[in-house]
Protein backbone atom coordinates (compact mmCIF):
# COMPACT_ATOMS: atom_id res chain seq x y z
CA UNK A 1 0.00 0.00 0.00
CA UNK A 2 1.34 3.47 -0.93
CA UNK A 3 2.54 5.84 1.80
CA UNK A 4 -0.37 8.21 1.24
CA UNK A 5 -2.88 5.46 1.50
CA UNK A 6 -1.29 4.07 4.64
CA UNK A 7 -1.38 7.50 6.22
CA UNK A 8 -5.03 7.92 5.27
CA UNK A 9 -5.86 4.57 6.81
CA UNK A 10 -4.13 5.47 10.05
CA UNK A 11 -6.06 8.74 10.34
CA UNK A 12 -9.38 7.08 9.67
CA UNK A 13 -8.55 4.42 12.23
CA UNK A 14 -7.82 7.05 14.82
CA UNK A 15 -11.06 8.86 14.11
CA UNK A 16 -12.97 5.59 14.34
CA UNK A 17 -11.49 4.77 17.70
CA UNK A 18 -11.93 8.25 19.03
CA UNK A 19 -15.57 8.46 18.06
CA UNK A 20 -16.18 4.80 18.74
CA UNK A 21 -17.76 4.36 15.31
CA UNK A 22 -18.40 1.16 13.39
CA UNK A 23 -15.47 0.61 10.99
CA UNK A 24 -17.55 0.15 7.87
CA UNK A 25 -19.03 3.65 8.21
CA UNK A 26 -15.82 5.43 7.21
CA UNK A 27 -13.80 2.60 5.72
CA UNK A 28 -16.53 0.85 3.76
CA UNK A 29 -15.65 -2.64 2.56
CA UNK A 30 -17.20 -6.07 2.75
CA UNK A 31 -19.31 -6.93 5.76
CA UNK A 32 -19.96 -10.56 6.62
CA UNK A 33 -22.62 -11.57 9.14
CA UNK A 34 -22.62 -15.24 10.05
CA UNK A 35 -25.77 -16.53 11.77
CA UNK A 36 -25.38 -19.67 13.87
CA UNK A 37 -22.71 -20.92 11.52
CA UNK A 38 -25.44 -21.87 9.03
CA UNK A 39 -26.07 -18.70 7.08
CA UNK A 40 -23.87 -15.81 6.06
CA UNK A 41 -25.00 -12.46 4.76
CA UNK A 42 -22.24 -10.80 2.78
CA UNK A 43 -22.69 -7.15 1.95
CA UNK A 44 -20.66 -4.72 -0.08
CA UNK A 45 -19.28 -7.12 -2.68
CA UNK A 46 -18.27 -6.25 -6.21
CA UNK A 47 -17.71 -9.67 -7.77
CA UNK A 48 -18.13 -13.34 -7.06
CA UNK A 49 -14.76 -14.82 -7.90
CA UNK A 50 -15.43 -18.45 -7.22
CA UNK A 51 -18.37 -20.62 -6.24
CA UNK A 52 -18.20 -24.21 -5.12
CA UNK A 53 -20.06 -26.19 -2.46
CA UNK A 54 -16.96 -25.94 -0.20
CA UNK A 55 -15.69 -22.43 -0.86
CA UNK A 56 -17.09 -19.10 -1.97
CA UNK A 57 -14.80 -16.20 -2.83
CA UNK A 58 -15.99 -12.66 -3.23
CA UNK A 59 -14.23 -9.32 -3.42
CA UNK A 60 -14.58 -5.61 -3.66
CA UNK A 61 -11.92 -3.08 -4.70
CA UNK A 62 -9.70 -3.65 -1.68
CA UNK A 63 -10.54 -6.87 0.03
CA UNK A 64 -11.13 -10.47 -0.86
CA UNK A 65 -13.25 -12.60 1.45
CA UNK A 66 -13.12 -16.35 1.41
CA UNK A 67 -15.85 -18.40 3.09
CA UNK A 68 -15.04 -22.03 3.66
CA UNK A 69 -17.58 -24.65 4.65
CA UNK A 70 -19.65 -27.57 3.40
CA UNK A 71 -22.85 -27.68 1.39
CA UNK A 72 -22.63 -24.00 0.56
CA UNK A 73 -25.39 -22.60 -1.65
CA UNK A 74 -26.26 -19.09 -2.72
CA UNK A 75 -29.73 -18.44 -1.42
CA UNK A 76 -30.13 -15.14 -3.27
CA UNK A 77 -27.98 -12.47 -4.88
CA UNK A 78 -28.09 -8.80 -5.68
CA UNK A 79 -25.35 -6.69 -7.30
CA UNK A 80 -23.85 -5.93 -3.88
CA UNK A 81 -25.06 -8.60 -1.48
CA UNK A 82 -25.35 -12.35 -1.31
CA UNK A 83 -26.82 -14.73 1.23
CA UNK A 84 -25.02 -18.03 1.63
CA UNK A 85 -26.61 -21.08 3.23
CA UNK A 86 -24.66 -24.07 4.48
CA UNK A 87 -22.24 -25.06 7.23
CA UNK A 88 -19.68 -22.25 7.47
CA UNK A 89 -16.34 -23.22 8.95
CA UNK A 90 -14.29 -20.06 8.45
CA UNK A 91 -14.28 -16.58 7.00
CA UNK A 92 -10.97 -15.19 5.73
CA UNK A 93 -10.27 -11.58 4.91
CA UNK A 94 -7.35 -10.78 2.65
CA UNK A 95 -6.33 -7.35 1.50
CA UNK A 96 -5.75 -7.31 -2.21
CA UNK A 97 -2.36 -6.21 -3.54
CA UNK A 98 -2.62 -3.20 -5.88
CA UNK A 99 -1.51 -3.83 -9.46
CA UNK A 100 1.79 -2.06 -9.95
CA UNK A 101 2.19 -3.21 -13.48
Amino acid sequence: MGKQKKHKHAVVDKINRALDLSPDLLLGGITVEVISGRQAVVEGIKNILEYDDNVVRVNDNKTEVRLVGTGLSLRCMTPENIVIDGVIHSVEYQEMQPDRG
Partner: protein
Amino acid sequence: MVTAIRQLRGWVSFSLEGAEIGRVLSDAAHSELMVWRVAKRGGVVQGRCYAREYHRLARLARKRHCRTRVVKRHGAPFVLNRYRWRWGVVAGAVIVVAASLILSNFVWSVEVNGNVNVTTKEILQVAKENGLTEGALKAGIDYNDIEYQLKKQFNKFAWISINENGTHITIEVSELNPKPDILKFTDPCDVVAKYDGVIQSVEPYRGKAVVKPNDFVRKGSILVSGVVEDAFEKTHYYHATAEVIAQVEHTLTLEQPFDASVTIKTGEVQKRNYLTIFGLRIPLFIGGVEGEYDTSDSYSWLSLFGKELPFGITERTFTMKQTDHLTLDEAGAKRLLTEQVQQKEAEEFADCKILAREYNFTTTETGVTLSADYTVEQDIAEQQQIYLSQQPEENPTESE
Protein backbone atom coordinates in the same frame (compact mmCIF):
# COMPACT_ATOMS: atom_id res chain seq x y z
CA MET B 1 -46.10 -14.08 -1.37
CA VAL B 2 -42.75 -14.27 -3.13
CA THR B 3 -43.46 -17.89 -4.03
CA ALA B 4 -46.86 -16.96 -5.45
CA ILE B 5 -45.35 -14.23 -7.60
CA ARG B 6 -42.69 -16.61 -8.88
CA GLN B 7 -45.33 -19.20 -9.75
CA LEU B 8 -47.36 -16.60 -11.61
CA ARG B 9 -44.38 -15.34 -13.59
CA GLY B 10 -42.93 -18.80 -14.23
CA TRP B 11 -39.39 -19.91 -13.35
CA VAL B 12 -36.88 -22.52 -14.49
CA SER B 13 -34.28 -24.70 -12.78
CA PHE B 14 -31.06 -24.60 -14.74
CA SER B 15 -27.65 -26.24 -14.56
CA LEU B 16 -24.44 -24.30 -15.06
CA GLU B 17 -21.14 -25.90 -16.08
CA GLY B 18 -17.78 -24.36 -16.75
CA ALA B 19 -14.68 -22.88 -15.18
CA GLU B 20 -15.95 -19.41 -14.38
CA ILE B 21 -19.20 -20.12 -12.65
CA GLY B 22 -18.55 -17.44 -10.06
CA ARG B 23 -18.04 -14.85 -12.80
CA VAL B 24 -21.25 -15.84 -14.50
CA LEU B 25 -23.12 -15.42 -11.22
CA SER B 26 -21.44 -12.11 -10.62
CA ASP B 27 -22.35 -10.89 -14.11
CA ALA B 28 -25.91 -12.03 -13.55
CA ALA B 29 -26.09 -10.10 -10.29
CA HIS B 30 -24.70 -6.98 -11.95
CA SER B 31 -27.21 -7.34 -14.81
CA GLU B 32 -30.00 -7.40 -12.22
CA LEU B 33 -31.06 -10.89 -13.17
CA MET B 34 -32.89 -12.58 -10.30
CA VAL B 35 -31.07 -15.82 -9.56
CA TRP B 36 -31.67 -17.80 -6.40
CA ARG B 37 -31.00 -21.18 -4.73
CA VAL B 38 -27.66 -21.73 -6.42
CA ALA B 39 -26.22 -24.99 -5.10
CA LYS B 40 -24.06 -27.87 -6.20
CA ARG B 41 -26.08 -31.02 -6.72
CA GLY B 42 -24.61 -34.20 -8.03
CA GLY B 43 -21.39 -32.42 -9.01
CA VAL B 44 -23.30 -29.86 -11.08
CA VAL B 45 -24.14 -26.30 -10.07
CA GLN B 46 -27.88 -25.71 -10.31
CA GLY B 47 -29.89 -22.57 -9.77
CA ARG B 48 -33.23 -20.95 -10.46
CA CYS B 49 -34.26 -17.89 -12.36
CA TYR B 50 -37.33 -16.38 -13.97
CA ALA B 51 -38.28 -17.99 -17.29
CA ARG B 52 -38.11 -14.72 -19.20
CA GLU B 53 -34.62 -13.99 -17.92
CA TYR B 54 -33.10 -17.37 -18.71
CA HIS B 55 -32.01 -16.36 -22.18
CA ARG B 56 -30.04 -13.40 -20.85
CA LEU B 57 -28.41 -15.67 -18.30
CA ALA B 58 -27.50 -18.15 -21.05
CA ARG B 59 -25.90 -15.32 -23.06
CA LEU B 60 -23.82 -14.25 -20.05
CA ALA B 61 -22.74 -17.85 -19.49
CA ARG B 62 -21.69 -18.19 -23.14
CA LYS B 63 -19.53 -15.05 -22.77
CA ARG B 64 -17.72 -16.75 -19.88
CA HIS B 65 -17.39 -19.97 -21.81
CA CYS B 66 -19.88 -21.77 -19.59
CA ARG B 67 -22.80 -23.94 -20.52
CA THR B 68 -26.37 -23.68 -19.19
CA ARG B 69 -29.22 -26.06 -19.59
CA VAL B 70 -32.86 -25.94 -18.46
CA VAL B 71 -33.53 -28.79 -16.03
CA LYS B 72 -37.21 -28.17 -15.27
CA ARG B 73 -39.91 -25.58 -15.94
CA HIS B 74 -42.31 -24.37 -13.27
CA GLY B 75 -45.22 -21.96 -12.94
CA ALA B 76 -48.46 -20.78 -14.50
CA PRO B 77 -47.20 -19.83 -17.99
CA PHE B 78 -46.06 -23.40 -18.66
CA VAL B 79 -49.29 -24.91 -17.31
CA LEU B 80 -51.39 -22.57 -19.44
CA ASN B 81 -49.28 -23.32 -22.47
CA ARG B 82 -49.82 -27.04 -21.96
CA TYR B 83 -53.59 -26.52 -22.07
CA ARG B 84 -53.67 -23.77 -24.67
CA TRP B 85 -55.71 -25.87 -27.10
CA ARG B 86 -58.34 -26.67 -24.51
CA TRP B 87 -60.46 -23.68 -25.32
CA GLY B 88 -63.47 -25.43 -23.83
CA VAL B 89 -62.10 -24.80 -20.35
CA VAL B 90 -61.91 -21.09 -21.02
CA ALA B 91 -65.28 -21.05 -22.69
CA GLY B 92 -66.77 -22.93 -19.76
CA ALA B 93 -65.25 -20.50 -17.28
CA VAL B 94 -66.59 -17.55 -19.25
CA ILE B 95 -70.05 -19.12 -19.43
CA VAL B 96 -70.12 -19.79 -15.70
CA VAL B 97 -69.10 -16.23 -14.87
CA ALA B 98 -71.58 -14.79 -17.34
CA ALA B 99 -74.35 -17.08 -16.10
CA SER B 100 -73.64 -16.12 -12.48
CA LEU B 101 -73.75 -12.43 -13.33
CA ILE B 102 -76.95 -12.77 -15.35
CA LEU B 103 -78.75 -15.15 -13.00
CA SER B 104 -77.99 -12.97 -10.00
CA ASN B 105 -80.46 -10.49 -11.46
CA PHE B 106 -83.32 -12.92 -10.95
CA VAL B 107 -85.19 -14.06 -7.87
CA TRP B 108 -84.12 -17.55 -6.87
CA SER B 109 -86.27 -18.10 -3.80
CA VAL B 110 -88.98 -16.40 -1.77
CA GLU B 111 -89.49 -17.05 1.92
CA VAL B 112 -92.22 -15.91 4.31
CA ASN B 113 -91.58 -15.39 8.02
CA GLY B 114 -93.76 -14.32 10.92
CA ASN B 115 -97.15 -15.47 9.63
CA VAL B 116 -99.38 -17.40 11.99
CA ASN B 117 -102.99 -17.44 10.80
CA VAL B 118 -102.42 -16.44 7.19
CA THR B 119 -100.82 -19.32 5.31
CA THR B 120 -97.53 -19.01 3.45
CA LYS B 121 -99.25 -20.29 0.32
CA GLU B 122 -101.79 -17.45 0.39
CA ILE B 123 -99.11 -14.80 0.87
CA LEU B 124 -96.95 -16.24 -1.90
CA GLN B 125 -99.96 -16.39 -4.21
CA VAL B 126 -100.67 -12.67 -3.76
CA ALA B 127 -96.97 -11.89 -4.17
CA LYS B 128 -96.90 -13.96 -7.36
CA GLU B 129 -99.90 -12.10 -8.76
CA ASN B 130 -97.96 -8.88 -8.24
CA GLY B 131 -94.77 -10.05 -9.87
CA LEU B 132 -92.76 -11.54 -7.02
CA THR B 133 -92.03 -15.18 -7.70
CA GLU B 134 -89.09 -17.48 -8.43
CA GLY B 135 -87.57 -16.55 -11.76
CA ALA B 136 -88.82 -12.95 -11.76
CA LEU B 137 -86.43 -10.18 -12.76
CA LYS B 138 -85.48 -8.26 -9.62
CA ALA B 139 -85.39 -4.91 -11.36
CA GLY B 140 -89.04 -5.23 -12.36
CA ILE B 141 -90.39 -5.86 -8.87
CA ASP B 142 -92.04 -3.03 -6.96
CA TYR B 143 -91.69 -4.09 -3.31
CA ASN B 144 -93.70 -1.16 -1.96
CA ASP B 145 -96.62 -2.03 -4.19
CA ILE B 146 -96.51 -5.67 -3.13
CA GLU B 147 -96.45 -4.68 0.55
CA TYR B 148 -99.49 -2.48 -0.06
CA GLN B 149 -101.34 -5.26 -1.92
CA LEU B 150 -100.65 -7.77 0.85
CA LYS B 151 -101.96 -5.39 3.51
CA LYS B 152 -105.00 -4.61 1.42
CA GLN B 153 -105.74 -8.22 0.53
CA PHE B 154 -105.54 -9.68 4.01
CA ASN B 155 -106.16 -6.73 6.32
CA LYS B 156 -104.54 -8.77 9.07
CA PHE B 157 -101.01 -7.48 9.13
CA ALA B 158 -99.61 -4.91 11.53
CA TRP B 159 -96.57 -4.47 9.27
CA ILE B 160 -95.00 -6.08 6.25
CA SER B 161 -91.42 -5.81 5.08
CA ILE B 162 -89.91 -7.32 1.95
CA ASN B 163 -86.15 -7.74 2.14
CA GLU B 164 -83.84 -8.55 -0.72
CA ASN B 165 -80.72 -10.52 0.17
CA GLY B 166 -78.94 -11.22 -3.09
CA THR B 167 -81.23 -13.56 -4.98
CA HIS B 168 -83.22 -14.55 -1.91
CA ILE B 169 -86.32 -12.52 -1.03
CA THR B 170 -87.81 -12.65 2.45
CA ILE B 171 -91.31 -11.41 3.23
CA GLU B 172 -91.47 -10.55 6.93
CA VAL B 173 -94.95 -10.07 8.34
CA SER B 174 -96.44 -9.39 11.73
CA GLU B 175 -100.12 -10.16 12.19
CA LEU B 176 -102.57 -8.01 14.10
CA ASN B 177 -103.95 -9.40 17.31
CA PRO B 178 -107.64 -9.76 16.51
CA LYS B 179 -110.11 -7.87 18.64
CA PRO B 180 -111.94 -10.45 20.77
CA ASP B 181 -115.59 -10.94 19.98
CA ILE B 182 -116.77 -10.57 23.52
CA LEU B 183 -117.95 -7.57 25.40
CA LYS B 184 -115.81 -6.23 28.13
CA PHE B 185 -116.96 -7.20 31.57
CA THR B 186 -117.67 -3.58 32.38
CA ASP B 187 -119.73 -2.90 29.21
CA PRO B 188 -123.44 -2.79 30.04
CA CYS B 189 -125.54 -5.17 27.97
CA ASP B 190 -128.88 -6.93 27.81
CA VAL B 191 -129.54 -10.60 27.14
CA VAL B 192 -131.73 -10.98 24.06
CA ALA B 193 -133.29 -13.96 22.24
CA LYS B 194 -131.33 -15.61 19.43
CA TYR B 195 -134.44 -17.29 18.00
CA ASP B 196 -138.20 -17.20 18.33
CA GLY B 197 -139.33 -19.66 20.96
CA VAL B 198 -141.24 -20.55 24.10
CA ILE B 199 -139.31 -20.01 27.32
CA GLN B 200 -138.74 -23.15 29.39
CA SER B 201 -136.43 -21.76 32.07
CA VAL B 202 -134.68 -18.50 32.90
CA GLU B 203 -131.59 -18.34 35.05
CA PRO B 204 -130.23 -14.79 35.21
CA TYR B 205 -126.71 -14.47 36.66
CA ARG B 206 -126.63 -10.72 36.41
CA GLY B 207 -129.41 -8.27 35.47
CA LYS B 208 -133.18 -8.38 35.75
CA ALA B 209 -135.20 -11.11 34.03
CA VAL B 210 -138.12 -9.70 32.08
CA VAL B 211 -139.55 -13.01 30.84
CA LYS B 212 -140.77 -16.09 32.63
CA PRO B 213 -141.35 -19.73 31.67
CA ASN B 214 -144.03 -20.34 29.02
CA ASP B 215 -143.61 -16.83 27.57
CA PHE B 216 -143.34 -16.71 23.77
CA VAL B 217 -140.48 -14.50 22.66
CA ARG B 218 -139.44 -13.22 19.28
CA LYS B 219 -135.88 -13.11 18.04
CA GLY B 220 -134.13 -10.03 19.42
CA SER B 221 -136.51 -9.39 22.34
CA ILE B 222 -134.96 -8.71 25.72
CA LEU B 223 -134.88 -11.68 28.06
CA VAL B 224 -132.74 -10.25 30.87
CA SER B 225 -132.29 -6.50 31.15
CA GLY B 226 -129.04 -4.85 32.09
CA VAL B 227 -130.87 -1.65 33.09
CA VAL B 228 -132.21 -1.90 36.61
CA GLU B 229 -133.91 0.74 38.74
CA ASP B 230 -133.47 0.47 42.46
CA ALA B 231 -135.85 1.37 45.29
CA PHE B 232 -134.61 4.95 45.17
CA GLU B 233 -135.43 5.19 41.44
CA LYS B 234 -131.80 5.30 40.59
CA THR B 235 -130.86 3.53 37.38
CA HIS B 236 -128.05 1.00 37.42
CA TYR B 237 -126.43 -0.57 34.36
CA TYR B 238 -125.29 -4.18 34.47
CA HIS B 239 -123.37 -6.48 32.19
CA ALA B 240 -126.30 -8.93 32.08
CA THR B 241 -125.63 -12.65 31.74
CA ALA B 242 -128.08 -15.54 31.85
CA GLU B 243 -128.96 -18.97 30.64
CA VAL B 244 -132.36 -19.03 28.95
CA ILE B 245 -133.64 -22.36 27.69
CA ALA B 246 -136.45 -22.23 25.18
CA GLN B 247 -138.31 -24.51 22.86
CA VAL B 248 -137.41 -23.51 19.33
CA GLU B 249 -138.53 -24.76 15.95
CA HIS B 250 -136.11 -25.23 13.10
CA THR B 251 -136.54 -26.47 9.53
CA LEU B 252 -133.89 -28.05 7.33
CA THR B 253 -134.64 -28.34 3.61
CA LEU B 254 -132.78 -30.60 1.21
CA GLU B 255 -133.31 -31.53 -2.45
CA GLN B 256 -132.31 -34.62 -4.39
CA PRO B 257 -132.86 -34.85 -8.16
CA PHE B 258 -133.60 -38.24 -9.72
CA ASP B 259 -130.68 -37.85 -12.15
CA ALA B 260 -127.73 -37.69 -9.86
CA SER B 261 -124.03 -37.59 -10.45
CA VAL B 262 -122.02 -39.11 -7.74
CA THR B 263 -118.28 -38.60 -7.72
CA ILE B 264 -116.32 -41.08 -5.70
CA LYS B 265 -112.59 -41.74 -5.32
CA THR B 266 -111.51 -44.95 -6.95
CA GLY B 267 -108.57 -45.41 -4.55
CA GLU B 268 -106.03 -45.31 -7.36
CA VAL B 269 -103.18 -42.81 -6.93
CA GLN B 270 -100.67 -41.90 -9.63
CA LYS B 271 -97.55 -39.78 -9.22
CA ARG B 272 -95.63 -37.76 -11.78
CA ASN B 273 -92.45 -35.76 -11.35
CA TYR B 274 -91.54 -32.39 -12.85
CA LEU B 275 -88.20 -30.64 -12.96
CA THR B 276 -88.84 -27.11 -11.72
CA ILE B 277 -86.43 -24.36 -12.74
CA PHE B 278 -87.29 -20.77 -11.86
CA GLY B 279 -90.99 -21.68 -11.72
CA LEU B 280 -90.93 -23.44 -15.09
CA ARG B 281 -92.13 -27.04 -14.83
CA ILE B 282 -90.59 -29.56 -17.18
CA PRO B 283 -92.29 -32.97 -17.14
CA LEU B 284 -90.03 -35.91 -16.44
CA PHE B 285 -92.45 -38.39 -17.95
CA ILE B 286 -94.00 -39.28 -21.25
CA GLY B 287 -97.75 -39.37 -21.58
CA GLY B 288 -100.36 -37.79 -19.34
CA VAL B 289 -102.86 -39.03 -16.82
CA GLU B 290 -106.22 -40.00 -18.23
CA GLY B 291 -109.50 -39.62 -16.43
CA GLU B 292 -110.81 -37.52 -13.59
CA TYR B 293 -108.57 -36.72 -10.70
CA ASP B 294 -107.71 -34.33 -7.91
CA THR B 295 -104.13 -33.11 -7.76
CA SER B 296 -101.80 -32.07 -5.01
CA ASP B 297 -98.15 -31.00 -5.30
CA SER B 298 -95.19 -31.50 -3.06
CA TYR B 299 -91.86 -29.76 -3.65
CA SER B 300 -88.27 -30.75 -3.06
CA TRP B 301 -85.92 -27.85 -3.58
CA LEU B 302 -82.18 -28.10 -3.85
CA SER B 303 -80.44 -26.12 -1.17
CA LEU B 304 -76.97 -24.67 -0.80
CA PHE B 305 -75.61 -23.66 2.60
CA GLY B 306 -79.12 -23.77 4.02
CA LYS B 307 -80.67 -21.55 1.33
CA GLU B 308 -83.23 -22.97 -1.09
CA LEU B 309 -82.38 -22.70 -4.77
CA PRO B 310 -85.04 -22.24 -7.46
CA PHE B 311 -84.28 -25.71 -8.86
CA GLY B 312 -85.96 -28.82 -7.66
CA ILE B 313 -88.40 -31.62 -8.23
CA THR B 314 -92.16 -31.18 -7.99
CA GLU B 315 -94.09 -34.37 -7.33
CA ARG B 316 -97.70 -34.16 -8.43
CA THR B 317 -100.06 -36.72 -6.93
CA PHE B 318 -103.14 -37.61 -8.98
CA THR B 319 -105.96 -39.06 -6.87
CA MET B 320 -108.25 -40.72 -9.39
CA LYS B 321 -111.99 -40.35 -9.06
CA GLN B 322 -114.97 -41.46 -10.99
CA THR B 323 -118.29 -39.82 -11.63
CA ASP B 324 -121.21 -42.19 -11.88
CA HIS B 325 -124.45 -41.01 -13.29
CA LEU B 326 -127.31 -42.58 -11.43
CA THR B 327 -130.98 -42.51 -12.02
CA LEU B 328 -132.68 -42.78 -8.68
CA ASP B 329 -136.16 -43.88 -7.99
CA GLU B 330 -138.32 -42.17 -5.40
CA ALA B 331 -137.37 -44.56 -2.64
CA GLY B 332 -133.68 -44.22 -3.40
CA ALA B 333 -133.88 -40.42 -3.43
CA LYS B 334 -135.69 -40.44 -0.11
CA ARG B 335 -133.11 -42.75 1.37
CA LEU B 336 -130.29 -40.48 0.28
CA LEU B 337 -132.07 -37.43 1.61
CA THR B 338 -132.63 -39.09 4.94
CA GLU B 339 -128.92 -39.87 5.27
CA GLN B 340 -127.97 -36.34 4.37
CA VAL B 341 -130.43 -34.74 6.78
CA GLN B 342 -129.27 -36.92 9.64
CA GLN B 343 -125.71 -35.81 9.00
CA LYS B 344 -126.73 -32.20 8.91
CA GLU B 345 -128.84 -32.59 12.02
CA ALA B 346 -125.87 -33.86 14.00
CA GLU B 347 -123.89 -30.78 12.97
CA GLU B 348 -126.59 -28.13 13.44
CA PHE B 349 -128.11 -29.34 16.71
CA ALA B 350 -125.03 -30.66 18.44
CA ASP B 351 -125.68 -28.58 21.59
CA CYS B 352 -129.47 -28.92 21.56
CA LYS B 353 -131.94 -31.44 22.85
CA ILE B 354 -134.19 -32.61 20.01
CA LEU B 355 -137.72 -33.01 21.30
CA ALA B 356 -139.42 -33.86 18.03
CA ARG B 357 -138.64 -34.26 14.36
CA GLU B 358 -140.85 -34.64 11.35
CA TYR B 359 -139.75 -35.43 7.81
CA ASN B 360 -141.97 -34.28 4.95
CA PHE B 361 -141.11 -35.50 1.44
CA THR B 362 -142.43 -33.76 -1.63
CA THR B 363 -142.02 -35.55 -4.94
CA THR B 364 -141.88 -33.65 -8.23
CA GLU B 365 -141.09 -34.73 -11.79
CA THR B 366 -137.42 -34.01 -11.40
CA GLY B 367 -136.75 -35.11 -7.85
CA VAL B 368 -137.66 -35.23 -4.18
CA THR B 369 -137.55 -32.41 -1.63
CA LEU B 370 -137.25 -33.12 2.10
CA SER B 371 -138.39 -30.56 4.62
CA ALA B 372 -137.36 -31.65 8.12
CA ASP B 373 -139.06 -29.85 11.02
CA TYR B 374 -137.44 -29.97 14.42
CA THR B 375 -138.53 -28.92 17.86
CA VAL B 376 -135.49 -28.50 20.06
CA GLU B 377 -134.61 -27.16 23.45
CA GLN B 378 -131.64 -24.86 23.42
CA ASP B 379 -130.08 -21.86 25.12
CA ILE B 380 -131.26 -18.81 23.20
CA ALA B 381 -129.47 -16.20 25.36
CA GLU B 382 -127.32 -13.72 23.44
CA GLN B 383 -125.69 -10.55 24.80
CA GLN B 384 -126.39 -7.22 23.18
CA GLN B 385 -124.50 -4.13 24.20
CA ILE B 386 -126.36 -1.13 25.58
CA TYR B 387 -125.03 2.06 24.00
CA LEU B 388 -125.11 5.03 26.33
CA SER B 389 -124.28 8.68 25.73
CA GLN B 390 -122.44 8.90 29.07
CA GLN B 391 -120.12 6.54 30.89
CA PRO B 392 -122.32 4.47 33.22
CA GLU B 393 -121.62 3.91 36.87
CA GLU B 394 -119.87 0.64 37.50
CA ASN B 395 -122.13 -1.73 39.35
CA PRO B 396 -120.42 -4.62 40.96
CA THR B 397 -122.23 -7.77 41.80
CA GLU B 398 -125.56 -9.42 42.21
CA SER B 399 -128.60 -9.68 39.96
CA GLU B 400 -131.93 -8.64 41.33
